[in-house]
């Protein structure tokens, strides 16, 4: 009696069984239960026939679709696409292996970082020592420091009126002796058509604000005496094989006396 009660199904459960029955999902006892209920319930019978109709329409739809087919070249096009991809992957693999190599190297270099640091520092130190010895770190004189009446040298050399001009022959020395002191600087312009090789001897202090300064501008050597005093001298000796031209600027043409040795 209890089993019969258990076997009795509600209509909602039966519709679920009907759906499963269409798909062949019922076991033997479920099938018996379903048929027993259908035999007595008109509503479920109607529901079953509706679902069967729906299913046959679905089968019809399925049949229509079965006619659809892809072109016979389809598999060939897949083949071509995959071959292309495979080639690309091979290239990527190579790149990956390069990347791995780089990673290995990075691992190696990371572990040797202190050693690389020491080596780098050693190289920098030795190079700087070498350059220092060669005098490469000595600051080149800047024409900005040469100021004549508040005019920068670059402008001054263009506008200055040179008082005297001399030519120093090879292995000759010119002695330029100051006769009149002055608070403003005197100039010497040393130039040649060829490369210039000469030495300068003087009795002035070398400094930024006072005394003797030398500057090379556009291949021409300029010498300034910031505070020229009487009996100061500048000797210029030509060591080259070509004559050198020396122009002087002073306040008064007799302020500098020149002779040769």
């Amino acid at each position, binding site marked *: 009696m209890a089993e019969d009660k258990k076997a009795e199904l509600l209509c909602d459960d039966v*519709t*679920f069984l009907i*759906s*499963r029955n*269409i*798909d*062949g*999902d019922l076991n033997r006892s479920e099938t018996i239960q379903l048929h027993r209920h259908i035999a007595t319930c008109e509503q479920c019978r109607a*529901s079953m026939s*509706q*679902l069967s109709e*729906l*299913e046959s*329409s*679905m*089968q*019809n*739809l*399925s*049949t*229509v*679709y*079965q*006619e*659809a*087919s*892809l072109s016979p070249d*389809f*598999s*060939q*096009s*897949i*083949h071509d*696409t*995959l*071959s292309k*991809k*495979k080639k690309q992957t091979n290239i990527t693999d190579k790149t990956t292996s390069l990347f791995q190599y780089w990673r290995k190297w990075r691992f190696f270099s990371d572990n040797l970082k202190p050693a690389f640091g020491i080596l780098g520092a050693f190289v920098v130190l030795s190079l700087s020592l070498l350059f220092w010895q060669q005098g490469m770190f000595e600051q080149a004189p800047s024409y900005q420091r040469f100021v004549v009446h508040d005019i920068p040298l670059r402008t001054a050399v263009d506008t200055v009126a040179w008082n005297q001009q001399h030519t120093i022959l090879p292995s000759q020395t010119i002695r330029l002796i100051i006769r009149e002191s002055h608070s403003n600087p005197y100039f010497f312009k040393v130039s040649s058509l060829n490369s210039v090789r000469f030495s300068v001897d003087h009795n002035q202090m070398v400094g930024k604000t006072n005394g003797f300064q030398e500057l090379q501008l556009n291949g021409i050597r300029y010498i300034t005496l910031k505070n020229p005093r009487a009996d100061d001298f500048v000797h210029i000796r030509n060591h080259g094989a070509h004559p050198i031209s020396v122009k002087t600027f002073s306040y008064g043409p007799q302020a500098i006396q020149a002779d040769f040795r």
Partner: protein
Amino acid sequence: MVLIILKRKRNDVFFKHTQNVMINSRSNLDIAEPDLKPANDHELIQRVRSGDLQSFDPLVARYQNQVYCFILKYVPVRAAEDLAQDTFIAVYENLDTFKGDSKFSTWIYGIAMNKVRNYLNRAPEQRFKHDSADYLLEKQSQEISPLEQLEQAVEIKYLLGQLPPDLKESIVLVSLEGLSYEETASVMSIPIGTVRSKVFRARQILKDIIKEQES
């Protein structure tokens, strides 16, 4: 002395070369032997896995129309071929993940299903709208199949479009593709009980819509 070594080396190279030629000719002979038995899916899959791209062609040829028909039920004709192509490329690329627990066709269905879902997510309007590029409508205009049959098919297709996507997926797989509940569960990656209830609910909704239309 050097000359003797060079001569020896040259002989070695020559010997190796002839050996290679012999080996090559032998392997050519092997390939030339006609393969009378069509290989089954498992054999072909093994060959593809070992790097033989040629063996993938028969697999594609075997399943291409089945996959195409399945995809056509969801998307317009113009997109279906592209999706079929994407599906087979994905099949090739993921072949190593196929464990053989389910049928190969079921596994392909799963991949195709994902491709369709991605497509519909990008173009959700395709879900409900009847596209002019719909396979059935195109067929109707060609009038190749019996018109009545086509009309009924169009109507059912339209009704299927009214279903929520997950219900549509399940009923298409079960009723149209003829997959078992178990296979459908595997394709959709859901429990078998959920498939049963989804198919049931889909049928109920379809039945109700038809009833409404009739009344």
